[in-house]
């Protein structure tokens, strides 16, 4: 034994030294015997029990595989080592096995047991690697084993093993497509996985196995959107592409009402999103709503589904990925899914990719070319990035040229043509030819420059390079066809060229032109024909055909001069070698030369030949390519590639959005869904049913929403729909099948409700009033039972409102708006309600009013306090009238501070003041509304007041007010503009222009204006505050100023200093306020605790420390005054 091994070792050693070249020499495989011998050596090395020898042998074998040499006869020797202890040997054996198992199926089976053992290993990485190799062995016999292994791994504890299972799915599918159904089950299970590690891989498997099963995505849609940013980059690409397709089937086209959108801007989408966010609503309710509110539908022609918005929002940061494929994927998603106004953001990122490797450039430019046809404006600012450098490869040059041509319009055409002039001088002739084509296209598209282009092209006719000339001729021909009568001199010039130009295509083009417009050049045309007749026999075929054409046309128009010539040409053609030409000649002779045999057609010869031809349309080859999904292989090739999934058209009507709810629940705390009047009514009607019949168990919603905490805290950013998640169903997601049953049950219940539901849809006020009653009555008994605040009811509100916060900002903004409306417009409508209510209730209603001049919290009993939030929302609901879609100008309420933008003297009579109107800026919810008031105190009228040349810090955006045409002397006018300050107090600088002057002005927002109020309950507030501790909390002590004693004063001062809303609070020593920043939506929580001696403590909790610090300062200042 030992001798044996020594022998082996020696032998191995010698081969090691002497033969390594052997394995590397491709020529040595020539003689079979030597080949065999060599492998014999390797076999011996593999059989040795020294790892180093085995390793050496394996390395040589792998080198052979890499060079494409056949090493299959070593299979038995190699497979023996599959259980080798040495990791590198093992890995190389795996490499070998995966490569050759398919060819040696029987022997490969020997290795299977090793992997099966590996699948049970306690170490997750070993389990994963075993599964990976096992699934890579393409041997049909082990399909059942693979299936079992995948199923098991899909429910493994370790996410890494689950990821490997996801990878294994397409492998098995390609091996045995019959397993599809089983595999879909596994995919479905893995799709529900909540880890980022698995998400990308399972979507990949989904795309390969069952891309048509879009229904599997519904329940995972929101989760995928939210996980997206943390998924590894390759997975992101796959997920984004899949979601693009998904969105096309589930949402409505955001651009379907383009004209309407143009008027209303983002406003409609913005308010609309609100109308839709309660997907938890039942379908029947939805239908009902539709039926009930045709007027609403008319006013809001398009509403973006919040899920649609979620996708757009969550993909946007990925434009900053370093991975070009991810950027492209987001870009195509925006191109296919985003409202027109928002697509622009992708341009910058795509232009950035142009700095990358030329292959990346190539693909990006192809896509940009397609996009620039549809959305020219998007790339216009980046025109210069598409200028061509002499060092670019030709294919890149041509593509850039394409983009430049697409971007050309009246304003930039002169710049572009100047660039083109440089390109024409390039040494790269293919590129020059493409440039000439491009000039031709610019000329056809832009009428103003047609003559300039034509002249330029005519000059090119004297170019020394024949290719250039030929290309010019072809393009000129096309251009002339559009307006031949003005250009007979050009035609003459071209006629002269026939002597010199040899390129057949160009000659043919000139001949065609002369023939077509022979009446414009009556003297020259016959002469050209004479010359051509002379050289006829030597011409290329296409030229010959055109000579015949020319002859025929001349014969018809000018038979006196050309009759003989024509016959001569036709005779020549009759004996031509090419049968096409012979045919043509015969055909034409019959048509034009009248003989007794000639048929009826010859009468129409003139009509046939001299018919007016439509001018050719010079189109981009990229036109309409966008019916392929951008960024795809099919788009690039402009042909459907195998496995390409068609991008579906937008549906006419949106499919039921509730399918995306992870768990459907019949009801939600009513105040999370103050969104639409119709829905509110429904709610109210439902309520009696619940509270009456289920009396003691309390409102259902409380139970429901309590569970949200669990799911919320897990994924951190739950989306709107999950607000309705219920406890039971949350558990269900863990434990399979119960869910369906329950749902079934719920549905039944629902139906019951519906059936029972009375329909007293009088008007919204009444119903909401009813609700108020309900809420109260519902809560009252419980309050009696336990006077602590920690009832489940309270909980429920906290949770639900929390999830609410995560909802799109538009929504909460909307809410605040409504709230304001409520507070402003409510009082008059309140009295009738109060009449049939108890006095107490009236109090609570009034107390909640932040802007109420005399709120006295001391009067608020705990009970009222407790009810408050739901009541407030009722009020909000009530006030949701048409005027919520507010006009763009809002009169400032009295307590708003105005700032001077332009003084009367510097402004030469024009004074401008601005204030922060604290209204949501409807076209863009991320902007702060700034109301600007122009007063013209000069003697003459001011004209054309507008904004120009905004110098904004990066990230900041501005929505200008529409130009004010005239402002008569002595008049005052107010407009509203929006500025996105990016949550910073940096000033926005811009020029204010009149028809005569420009003024540099800047608007710097006080920190308090960078936020907007949001609604919270006390508990919610506490909870949020608890999460914003440490660095995010700033506490300062202060002694209150003289006039600042009393709660009312504090409230007023704080709300003046910052745009926050009151949070109801049980203690009169403490005032709380909540809001969120306008741009990023970070929470801002303020609490002021007053002490008896006039001292107070101010606490600000905000994720944004800068904002927090500044806000504290401002509040301190206002309180000490």
């Amino acid at each position: 034994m030992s001798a044996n091994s020594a022998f082996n070792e020696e032998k191995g050693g010698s081969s090691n030294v002497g033969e390594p070249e052997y394995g590397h020499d491709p020529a040595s495989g020539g003689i079979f015997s030597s080949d065999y011998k060599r492998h014999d050596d390797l076999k011996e090395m593999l059989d040795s029990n020294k790892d180093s020898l085995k390793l050496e042998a394996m390395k040589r074998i792998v080198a052979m595989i890499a060079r494409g040499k056949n090493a299959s006869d070593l299979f038995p020797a190699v497979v023996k080592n599959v259980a080798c202890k040495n990791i590198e040997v093992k890995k190389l054996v795996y490499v070998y096995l995966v490569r050759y198992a398919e060819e040696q199926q029987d022997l490969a089976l020997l290795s299977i047991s090793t992997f099966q053992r590996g699948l049970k290993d306690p170490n997750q990485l070993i389990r994963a690697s075993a599964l990976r190799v096992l699934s890579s062995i393409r041997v049909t016999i082990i399909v059942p084993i693979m299936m079992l292994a995948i199923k098991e791994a899909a429910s493994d504890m370790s996410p890494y093993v689950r990821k490997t299972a996801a990878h294994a799915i397409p492998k098995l599918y390609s091996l045995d497509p019959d397993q599809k159904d089983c595999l879909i089950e596994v995919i479905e299970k893995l799709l529900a996985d909540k880890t980022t590690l698995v998400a990308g891989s399972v979507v990949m498997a989904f795309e390969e196995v069952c891309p048509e099963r879009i229904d599997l995505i519904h329940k995972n849609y929101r989760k995928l959107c939210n996980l997206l940013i943390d998924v590894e980059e390759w997975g992101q690409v796959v997920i984004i592409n899949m979601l693009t397709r998904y969105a096309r089937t589930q949402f409505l086209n955001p651009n379907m009402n383009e004209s309407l959108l143009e008027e209303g801007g983002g406003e409609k989408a913005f308010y609309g999103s609100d109308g839709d966010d309660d997907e938890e609503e039942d379908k029947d309710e939805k239908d009902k709503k539709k039926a009930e509110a045709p007027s609403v539908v008319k006013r809001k022609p398009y509403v973006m589904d919040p899920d649609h918005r979620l996708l757009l929002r969550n993909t946007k940061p990925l434009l900053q990925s370093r991975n070009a494929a991810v950027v492209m994927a987001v870009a195509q998603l925006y191109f296919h899914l985003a409202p027109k106004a928002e697509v622009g953001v992708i341009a910058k990122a795509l232009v950035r990719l142009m700095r990358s490797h030329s292959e990346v450039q190539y693909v990006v430019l192809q896509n940009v070319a397609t996009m620039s046809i549809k959305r020219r404006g998007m790339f216009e600012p980046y025109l210069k990035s598409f200028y061509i450098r002499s060092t670019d490869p030709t294919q890149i040059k041509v593509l850039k040229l394409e983009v430049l041509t697409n971007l050309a319009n009246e304003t930039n055409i002169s710049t572009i043509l100047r660039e083109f002039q440089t390109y024409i001088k390039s040494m790269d002739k293919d590129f020059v030819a493409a440039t000439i084509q491009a000039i031709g296209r610019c000329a056809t598209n832009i009428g103003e420059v047609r003559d300039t282009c034509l002249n330029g092209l005519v000059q090119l006719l004297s170019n020394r390079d024949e290719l250039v000339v030929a290309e010019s001729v072809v393009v000129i021909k096309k251009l002339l066809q559009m307006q031949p009568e003005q250009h007979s001199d050009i035609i003459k010039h071209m006629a002269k060229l026939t002597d010199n130009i040899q390129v057949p295509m160009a000659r043919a083009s000139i001949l065609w032109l002369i023939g077509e417009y022979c009446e414009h050049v009556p003297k020259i045309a016959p002469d050209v024909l004479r010359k051509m007749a002379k050289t006829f026999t030597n011409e290329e075929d296409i030229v010959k055909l055109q000579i015949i054409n020319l002859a025929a046309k001349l014969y018809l128009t000018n038979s006196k001069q050309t009759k003989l010539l024509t016959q001569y040409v036709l005779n020549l053609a009759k004996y031509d070698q090419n049968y096409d030409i012979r045919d043509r000649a015969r055909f034409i002779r019959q048509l034009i030369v009248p003989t007794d045999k000639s048929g009826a057609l010859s009468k129409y010869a003139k009509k046939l030949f001299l018919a007016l031809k439509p001018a050719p349309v010079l189109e981009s080859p990229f036109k309409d390519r966008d019916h392929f999904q951008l960024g795809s292989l099919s788009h690039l090739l402009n042909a459907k590639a195998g496995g390409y999934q068609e991008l579906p058209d937008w549906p006419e009507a949106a499919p039921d959005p509730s399918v995306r709810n992870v768990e459907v629940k019949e009801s939600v705390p009513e105040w999370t869904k103050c969104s639409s009047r119709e829905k509110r009514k429904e709610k109210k009607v439902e309520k009696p049913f619940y509270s009456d019949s289920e009396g003691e168990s309390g409102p259902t919603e409380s139970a429901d929403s309590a569970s949200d905490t669990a799911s919320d805290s897990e994924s951190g950013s739950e989306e709107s729909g999950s607000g309705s998640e219920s406890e039971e169903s949350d558990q269900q997601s863990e434990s399979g099948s119960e869910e369906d049953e329950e749902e079934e049950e719920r549905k039944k219940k629902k139906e019951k409700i519906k059936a029972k539901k009375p329909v007293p849809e009088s008007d919204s006020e009444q119903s909401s009033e009813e609700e108020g009653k309900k809420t109260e009555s519902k809560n009252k008994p419980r309050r009696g039972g336990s006077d602590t605040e920690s009832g489940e009811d309270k909980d429920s509100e906290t949770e639900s409102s929390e999830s609410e916060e995560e909802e799109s900002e538009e929504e909460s903004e909307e809410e605040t708006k409504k709230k304001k409306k409520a507070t402003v417009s409510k009082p008059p409508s309140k009295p009738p309600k109060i009449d049939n209510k108890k006095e107490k209730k009236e109090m609570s209603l009034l107390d909640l009013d932040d802007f109420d001049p005399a709120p006295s919290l001391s009067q608020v009993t705990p009970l009222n306090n407790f009810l408050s939030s739901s009541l407030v929302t009722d009020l909000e609901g009530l006030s949701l009238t048409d005027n919520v879609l507010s006009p763009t100008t809002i009169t400032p309420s009295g307590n708003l501070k105005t700032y001077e933008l332009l003084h009367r003297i510097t402004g030469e009579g024009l004074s401008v003041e601005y204030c922060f109107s604290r209204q949501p800026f409807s076209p863009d919810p991320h902007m702060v509304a700034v109301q600007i008031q122009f007063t013209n105190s000069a003697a003459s009228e001011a004209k054309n007041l507008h904004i120009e040349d905004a110098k904004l810090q990066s990230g900041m955006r501005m929505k200008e007010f529409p130009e004010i045409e005239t402002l008569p002397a002595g008049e005052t006018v107010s407009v509203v503009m929006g500025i996105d300050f990016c949550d910073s107090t940096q000033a926005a600088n811009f020029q204010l222009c009149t028809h005569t002057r420009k003024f540099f002005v800047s608007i710097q927002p006080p920190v308090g204006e960078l936020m907007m109020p949001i609604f919270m309950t006390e508990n919610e507030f506490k909870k949020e505050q608890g999460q914003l501790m440490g660095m995010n909390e700033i506490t300062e002590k202060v002694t209150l100023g003289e006039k600042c004693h009393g709660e009312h004063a504090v409230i007023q001062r704080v709300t003046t200093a910052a745009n926050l809303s009151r949070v109801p609070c049980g203690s009169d020593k403490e005032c709380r306020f909540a809001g969120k920043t306008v741009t990023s939506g970070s929470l801002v929580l303020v609490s002021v605790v007053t002490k008896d001696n006039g001292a107070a403590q101010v606490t600000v909790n905000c994720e944004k420390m800068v904002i927090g610090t500044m806000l504290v300062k401002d509040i301190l200042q206002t309180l000490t005054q």
Partner: protein
Amino acid sequence: MIHSLFLVNSSGDIFLEKHWKSVVSRSVCDYFFEAQERASEPENVPPVIPTPHHYLISVLRHRIYFVAVIQSEVPPLFVIEFLHRVVDTFQDYFGVCTEAAIKDNVVVVYELLEEMLDNGFPLATESNILKELIKPPTILRTVVNTITGSTNVGEQLPTGQLSVVPWRRTGVKYTNNEAYFDVVEEIDAIIDKSGSTITAEIQGVIDACVKLTGMPDLTLSFMNPRLLDDVSFHPCVRFKRWEAERILSFIPPDGNFRLLSYHVSSQNLHPLRSTSLVAIPVYVKHNITFREGSSQGRFELTLGPKQTMGKGVEAVLVNSQLPRGVLNTNLNPSQGTYTFDPVTKLLTWDVGKINPQKLPSLKGSMSLQAGASKPDENPTINIQFKIQQSALSGLKVNRLDMYGEKYKPFKGIKYMTKAGKFQVRT
């Protein structure tokens, strides 16, 4: 997704193949060779070539074509980006990515490719994870391996794949803790005949070399972050923090990596002039003329510094593709060396440093083909240069802080400006 990969050298030999699914015959590359023949220049081979049963997607790096075989629909950029990542990884491992290096390390290459793709779908592309799995070959390790028979394959299991920060491995230890950042800006410009700027933009990157023990959490802030117009980050950078505060906060990968790349918009540079352009640090005076009927052409070129903020312009290299009609040149450089290749017609002038007192110039004549007409195109001049210790945009790092670890690291920041695609039309 990716079915197979073939590596093709400049002479058209397939020197490596790797299959992730069933074997695809290498004859599929014939379609590629066909396209290669049709293309006049190596870089003009279309990156995507359809064949009857497959699609070939290729990238050209270091004169090697990396040809991936695809069987069905996949975003082409996905494959292209991945192939570039493969090349980057090779470069990282072997220092260079040449045919020789790949052949010498064929086993490591194979092991890498095996880990990077699973069934054609990218699995581990993060260099940190890969290095944990497969150790890069070093001379020392090669020697040790041959003696002891130990291996390149990492002994411990690749925990990096499971980590929440997959780009950093745990248990990193250094005796000297250092973090270096290079701010490198490249200026891309096209200057027209008369010397006015047609387009100019600055593209910058921050490359980092971080050798720090443990799990440091770094923040890097800029004096003037508003300069950055468009940025793309290494995945380690916390995006939210940047959005909110314009601070780069990250747990760095170990070793060399590109922290971010950015674009400086010309608007931000000169807030008062909306149409302002980037300051061009050099100017070129040129006079290249051909006369009709003469077999001589004149060639004059002078370089000079402009707007360099007092920093010297170094490593200047000029090259220009002269028209085909030029047979030879007889030029006289005032400094540096020049070469002219009569076959490719490429003129190269290695200038070195620009001395503002004595401007470098290249003057002389070109001989043209006798009898041939004068070329109607004028050559463009491409210039490369470097300016040390200055970032053209004026971007400045304010401070670098480290949290999470106790030691004091050594920190260094270097600035440099380079010419990117800097072209002067004549």
